[in-house]
């Protein structure tokens, strides 16, 4: 059970390196014996989201914990190459497959497991790509503004594409090791990028994936915008990216939630925008022991760790 007791937050700005060490120690303390992480400490039900993010956040000197996490991800892969969302989930595959593969890529894991995951990502697609639904969206269902020719990845099979699983999948395919960046991989990356461009909110930024509904523009969300931007990191500069970065900077001024602030820092830093004030804000609102959600704790750690130039999502130069 995820329970947050609402304690008054400290406003003192802590040293970010110190805070990051505390985050990492909390993550290590919360790792399950089998190597994965749950969302919160009150359950032992592991989930792939916090596990992949924690693996990305663990520093290279946490050898034992990283190895356990890698072995855990290798062990929990579905037979079809995807990953389930959590312990007990069915084997059809989840929208977190891209995140799990990306985390393994960053740990230099390569082989049958990653090949199978890449193949699953190539084959998995939102239902709007099916001719029947494409026809429906073209002829009779115009309430949501989007182009069904531009498809990405769904959260679960037999549903349409959404921004978060698409961004994770683009990241995984772009930075997969040892595969040719052409043919079907390139085809899916290009379509995914086009889908992100298509689903952008008017004025920049992304929400779950509905930019305009019933002719009314919907608001973007900071975490989703940051993640979409990270997946577009090595794309040629364009107004989608610039307007979204501008929006994210403006949004950060009034944001006090650790998850959104941490994603914001990672994206702004990756694009070379200043982050000092946002990092200070995050440091002032976070007490690692009080962050009950392991996924949030991991992203906060990633945001603090990026200070010495170690941004887990700034990998464009490596490929």
């Amino acid at each position: 059970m995820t329970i947050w007791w609402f304690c008054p937050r400290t406003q003192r700005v802590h040293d970010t390196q110190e805070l990051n060490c505390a985050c990492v120690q909390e993550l290590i303390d919360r790792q399950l014996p089998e190597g994965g992480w749950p969302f919160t400490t009150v359950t032992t039900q592991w989930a792939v989201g916090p596990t992949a993010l924690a693996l990305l956040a663990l520093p290279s000197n946490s050898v034992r914990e990283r190895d356990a996490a890698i072995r855990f991800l290798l062990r929990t892969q579905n037979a079809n190459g995807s990953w389930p969302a959590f312990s007990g989930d069915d084997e059809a595959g989840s929208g977190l497959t891209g995140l799990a593969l990306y985390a393994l890529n960053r740990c230099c894991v390569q082989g049958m497991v990653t090949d199978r995951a890449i193949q699953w990502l190539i084959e998995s697609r939102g239902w709007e790509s099916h001719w029947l639904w494409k026809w429906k969206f073209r002829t009779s269902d115009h309430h949501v503004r989007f182009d069904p020719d531009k498809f990405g990845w769904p959260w679960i099979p037999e549903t349409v594409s959404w921004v978060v699983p698409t961004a994770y999948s683009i990241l995984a395919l772009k930075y997969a090791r040892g595969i040719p960046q052409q043919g079907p991989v390139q085809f899916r990356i290009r379509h995914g990028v086009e889908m992100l461009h298509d689903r952008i909110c008017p004025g920049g930024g992304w929400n779950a994936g509905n930019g305009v509904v019933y002719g009314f523009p919907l608001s973007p969300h900071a975490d989703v915008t940051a993640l979409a931007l990270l997946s577009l990191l090595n794309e040629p500069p364009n107004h989608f990216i610039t307007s979204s970065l501008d929006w994210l900077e403006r949004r950060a001024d009034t944001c006090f939630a650790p998850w959104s602030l941490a994603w914001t820092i990672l994206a702004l830093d990756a694009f070379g925008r200043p982050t000092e004030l946002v990092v200070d804000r995050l440091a002032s609102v976070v007490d690692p022991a009080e962050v009950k959600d392991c996924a949030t704790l991991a992203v906060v750690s990633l945001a603090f760790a990026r200070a010495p130039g170690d941004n887990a999502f700034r990998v464009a130069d490596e490929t």
Partner: protein
Amino acid sequence: MKLDRRTFLTASLGLAAGASTTALPNRPKYHVARRQPRSRVAILGAESYSHKLESILQYGLGLFHLDVRGKTVLLKPNLVDYISGNHINTHPLLVCAAVECFRRLGAKNVLVGEGPGHQRDTELVLLESGFSEALRQVSVPFVDLNRDELAITPLLAGYTGMKCLWLPRTVLEADFVVSMPKVKTHHWSGVTLSMKNMFGVVPGAKYGWPKNILHWKGIQESILDLCATVPIHFVIADAIVAMEGNGPLNGHPRPLNRIVLSDDPVAADATCMRLMGLGPARITHIRIGAQFLGNASTERIDQLADVVCAPANPFEVVPEFQHLRVTGSAQRDS
């Protein structure tokens, strides 16, 4: 005519197949019957969001003689997102008033739980909507149902065709579930009231943001399957400032200055629709829900406080739901 064995068998099979096909639509698709002979609703006046809500609510709950002593009570408000100036969410003061009232009634535990369907950062919604501070003041724990421990749960109705759903343990283990919707129109489902509010118990960790599978399987059908599976024991609907037009996010505020209480979600939603000037029988999940989940007919609902008073101008809705709007005698008949 000579009837050989082969012909007889073929004809029998054909007849059986035909009979089963024609019988299917008439067969009930629910495996649970919660409709009571009569239901109770209390419409309470409340001019604004203030600390007076606690005394209003205490009076209203007293009309129902609820026994929640020793029980774990889960309050499920409607928390979607935060947009400054838009009345999107159940007001935190109403939720805090409910916390205090259920504690006073002897509940063992009172929890507040929600799994927003649009915004992944639940803490952000809590902080910006004022919930964090309000819940802290009454020291009540909040459960993010999107990231709770999950258990596979067989569905007790079959309108979507799904056999089961993963649901949060907090919801499954609660003794007394209180749906606390914001009274709003909705561009996909017509209205979002106590039954539609239960979409928030479906976990994003499994089904994503938004919980798109519920749309693909049919919103009305999903509401019925969910409400059959997760019983709503009580409803406290926030109609102090409701929303009309392009809800659930971008409609316009519409003050009704009411709180609606009920021991039956179908009766609560039907009453809210009448207060909105909309016809409850014209919404599928209320019409079918009235067969097994509760009572929609005014003849089966005891009004414990104010009487239903339909507005002169029904709530605005998006074009697809214009047929919901009723006036005059049609309002009474609906």
